[in-house]
Every structure is written in C-alpha cells, then in structure tokens.
C-alpha cells in the first residue's frame, strides 16, 4: 500500500466521519425550545413587573443549569410591553413567528386581551393574572398560573380573619362582624374577586357595607375612610396595588377607623410596610407563596440566582414577585418535560400531557402543591394567609377552603 492510498483509504474516511460525528453532536447540543415572555418594566405595573421579569430570567437560568427540558435548552425571548395592550398583541405575533411553544405572560391587560387568541392557537399562556374566571378550562383552557386565584385568595383571607381575629373582638358573640371593600371599581384586576368575597362574607355571617372606590393612584383616601367610619366596619378588604393600599391603611390608621385589613395579592408585598409604616401592623393578606428570602425549600436557589444574575440589586430590594415568577416558570418547566417525554411539544400536548397530569406537584417556595384537571384549573384549595407583625410577615393560617366547603368548592365556586 503506498502513502497516497493510505492517506485516501484510511485518513480521509476517518476525517469525514469525525466531521459528521462532531456535526451531529453540535446539532444535538444546540436543540432549543423557544418560550416567550411578556413583561411590564416601564408601565403602570412596573413597580412589581420589573421584579417579576427579573425572576423569570433568573428562573430560566436555573432551569438551564438543571438540564433544561430533558436536555433541550429553553431559549427565552423576553420583552417589555409597557402594559400597552396593542404591543402585547404585537409581541404575541412575534412569539408565534419565533415558534415559541408557550408564553409567560403578565397582567390582566395582556392576559384578558390575548385569551381568545391563545385559546384558538392552543398556546399555553402562564401568567401572573390570577383571575378566578381564568381557572375554568371550559372557557379558558390555555390560561394557567401556579397560584391560587384572586377569588380563592379573597375567600381564604376573610375566613382567616374570621377564624383568628374575630373571636378575640370585644363584640364577638354579640353581633355580626361588619365588612366592607375598598378598591378601584373600574379596574378589572381589583374587581375580579368582589362577587366571591361577598359570597364568602355572607356564608360566614358578615354584615356587608358599602364599597369604597379608591383609585390605584390614590395617596389621599380620607374621604373614603370618613365614609367607611359611618358603617364602622370590623374588616376592610383591599383590592388595589401596594401604593394605594398603603395610603388607605395609613389614612385608616390616622383617622382611627379601628378595622382590620385584608389585602389581595398584588397589594401585599415587602413594600407595604415600607410605605404604610406602623399602620401596616396586623395587616393580613394572601401571598400565594413565600416572601423573598423566607426559609422554605428552594428559596436558597431563588436568592442565589438573584444575587448571581443581578448583583447590582441588593437582596433587600427584591420582592415576593421574584418568587411568583419562579412559581410560573417551574410549572411550565414541569409541563414541558412531561409533554416532551410524551413525544409532543405542541400546545395541546403541553396542556394534556403536561399541566393536566399534575397531581399535587410540589413546586416548594411555600406555595401549595399544584393540581390541574381537565375540568378544573384552580391549583389548590388551600391558601396561606399572612400577617405583618413585629417587623415580619408571619403565617397566620393555611385556610383549607376545599376541605371545609367541599360541595361549594366542587360545584359552585369554579370560574368566578
């Protein structure tokens, strides 16, 4: 065999095979799954939206570092839409062109506007809008979230106050407790659980007073507090976001309203005591998961990734919104893994082979284990209710709505 023959017969085929193998491995290593993320980092909800957006990106890094979707990497396309609904629709079209298999959405604005489209497109849309009516898969099968919905949270919050605070009241056993609601009437987010909380107030035997219309922009709510004083409520439910809730709680404190306060999720975070000061003492709320840095499983990773990827933001400035973002990413990750294992990463498969196979799937982070069925997308019947007390958020009660009212839970409360 001469040198030339040796070269062509042995080395060239080996070289070609090597190239082929390297090429194949390179292709396999590059396999990605595209996911879109719509966030508000500039608009009306940017105070919480930015923290949530950072949490989404950090959680995706965690997913990548832990094997991705059965070895496939998630490529995140994250955009700020400034809470402008037309821009949300535009970005959604971009996600479709990018062949995203799912979208991590944000608030009521984009979620409501896109709901019919994503249902038609069979696009899983995991968002931070927890409206109860999005939990009915007969109407909105592709809208999902890891948290208990606003209506469930509101029922749980009023129940926790009734269980833990009302028995200690001087008028307990002498009269009905009095209850009123304070929220921006025109806001779909604020008004979403009104019907449910009043229903729960009726079940528990409250006397219900007149609602107070408080703008999301309010920093002076004295006229509403004076109106409430005529009714003398024992408990006020706040449906707004943090700044106006803080203003209302402050005014209630300074004007001596003498009522307890329960707050919906997006008005109840680490900024509430910063803004409301001593008036925040005793304020209760539905947090849907643990607060940033709280001692619960997996929180160490949330904090680690926050410090690692956003070292310029002090941990004390981070909020529960980061943890909520992780919750949504973790359920999407699990659904994608299950759908991928079933061999189909289409929207319907992600829903049927993914989400709707969850049965008490534990995402940790202080959130209740997640269950979805084909007829019910409420994730859990248990809600942790917290209280701000002595400088910390403390767990008051995990209210088990499903256990206490099983018939109503199963037959009456879904979807509103």
């Amino acid at each position: 065999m001469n040198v030339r023959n040796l070269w062509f017969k042995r080395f060239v085929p080996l070289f070609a095979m090597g190239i082929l193998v390297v090429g194949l491995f390179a292709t396999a290593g590059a396999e990605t799954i595209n996911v879109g993320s719509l966030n508000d980092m500039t608009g009306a909800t940017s105070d919480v939206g930015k923290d949530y957006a950072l949490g989404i990106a950090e959680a995706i890094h965690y997913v990548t570092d832990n094997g991705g979707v059965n070895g496939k990497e998630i490529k995140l396309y994250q955009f700020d839409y400034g809470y402008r609904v037309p821009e949300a629709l535009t970005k959604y079209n971009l996600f479709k062109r990018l062949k995203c298999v799912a979208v991590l959405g944000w608030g009521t604005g984009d979620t409501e506007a896109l709901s019919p489209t994503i249902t038609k497109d069979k696009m899983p849309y995991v968002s931070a809008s927890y409206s109860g009516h999005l939990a009915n898969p007969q109407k909105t099968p592709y809208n999902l979230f890891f948290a208990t919905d606003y209506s469930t949270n509101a029922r749980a919050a009023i129940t926790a106050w009734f269980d833990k605070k009302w028995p200690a009241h001087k008028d307990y056993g002498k009269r009905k407790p009095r209850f009123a609601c304070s929220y921006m009437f025109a806001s779909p987010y604020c008004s979403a659980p009104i019907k449910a909380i009043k229903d729960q107030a009726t079940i528990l035997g409250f006397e219900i007073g007149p609602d107070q219309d408080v703008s999301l922009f309010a920093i002076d709510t004295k006229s509403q507090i004076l109106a409430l004083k005529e009714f003398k409520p024992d408990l006020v439910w706040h449906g707004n976001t943090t700044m106006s809730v803080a203003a209302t709680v402050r005014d209630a404190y300074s004007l001596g309203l003498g009522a307890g306060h329960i707050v919906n999720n997006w008005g109840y975070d680490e900024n509430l005591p910063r803004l409301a000061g001593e008036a925040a003492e005793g304020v209760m709320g539905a947090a849907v998961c643990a607060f940033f840095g709280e001692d619960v499983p997996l929180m160490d990773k949330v904090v680690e990734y926050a410090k690692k990827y956003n070292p310029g933001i002090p941990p004390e400035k981070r909020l529960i919104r980061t943890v909520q973002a992780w919750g949504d990413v973790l359920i999407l990750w699990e659904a994608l893994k299950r759908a991928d294992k079933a061999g189909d990463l289409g929207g319907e498969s992600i829903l049927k082979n993914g989400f709707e196979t969850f049965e008490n799937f534990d995402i940790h982070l202080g959130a209740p284990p997640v269950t979805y069925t084909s007829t019910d997308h409420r994730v859990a019947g248990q809600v942790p209710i917290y209280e701000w007390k002595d400088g910390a958020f403390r767990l008051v009660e995990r209210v088990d709505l499903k256990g206490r009212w099983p018939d109503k839970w199963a037959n009456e409360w879904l979807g509103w």
Partner: protein
Amino acid sequence: MRKKSLILKGFSVVVISTLLLACATAPPTPSEQNFQAPVVTLNWVEVAHYWGWWYFSKKIEPTKGTAGNYGAPLDLAFIFDVNNPNPYPVLMQNLRFTVAFEEFDLNTVGSAEMQWIPAGKTNQLRVHAMFDGRQSLLSLLVTGGFKLQEKGMGAGAGGAFKQLAVWWEGIPSVDFPIHVKEGSAVFNADDLMVVTSFSGTFPSE
C-alpha cells in the same frame, strides 16, 4: 513515487511545525483563576429622537386614526464602553439596566444581542430606551405618588404631569440627572460565566 513521498513528508513536517509554533504562542485559555469580569461604563447619553412634550386624552378627536390617551415619546440612547481585560476574547450574552430620572425609576431596558469583545479591547454598545409619556405618567401615578408629594410637585395627576413636563422639556439640555442603576451584564469565556454589575449618572456628578 519517491518524489510524491518526499512531498508528503515535507508537508507533514510543515504542518507539525506550524502546530507546535501555534501551541507555543497560544494565548492562555480561560480558567476560573484568570477570568476577570469585564468592565461596563456609561460613557454618555444622547437624545436620539425628540418630539417635545404633549399629552392628549382620549376625549380629543384625532385628525386621523384612533382616539386614546397618548403622551409624547422620548427616545434616549445610552452608550456604554465594555472593556475586556482578559487575554482572550469574551462573549457578552446580554446586558440590562434601569433608568431613573432623578429618583424616579422609569424604565428597564437591555440588549440581548450577543457580541464578542477581543482580548484587551473595548467595545461600545448603544442601547435605546423609549419613554412613552402615557406609560411614564401611569408609572409615576401608581408608584411615585408619595415621592412626588414629598418633592412638592403636588398630588395626583396634576403633580405627575408637572413632573413629566419638567423632564420632557428639560431633556434637550439634560437639566436633571439621568441615572443608570442596577445594571448587570452576562459574559462567557468558553464554559465560564461571570456577571458584571454597573451603574452611572449622566451628566456625570
């Protein structure tokens, strides 16, 4: 035949020598010990596009198009120097930062386009940030109410509009400090990763 063999031998010697020379002069490879975090510095800010200050509520009938709540947009460009102190190239994966006018956070923007920075060199990166008058108004109203009141701008929409007018009308001469804060940039060298934090103010204090 012998001639061909000699040519192949000669060719092999040249190839091996080249490889050995390349190995001898190869720059250090990235390692945990030698990977230094690149440095990101705000160089300057410019008003990229400007429409003045105006605001129309949805009650105003437009000449064409759809009525709505519209505030003047403002397009600022932030130019950063990104220095790679390492003796090997690094890949910048992305960069993100928050923009504050005075003490009010108004925007969080970034660049997700990857770029290589040669060993020991400095790249420049331009990041545009669009400020929408309407969204900035809502952001101020929902989150900045207490601060506006403390600043003496007044409460509610009146105070927020007054503040926006000061910024939008003052931006051509940059009459107020523009802060870049909470910045982070992700860099890779081979399988290593490092995150650089940065901040800055324009005009510089």
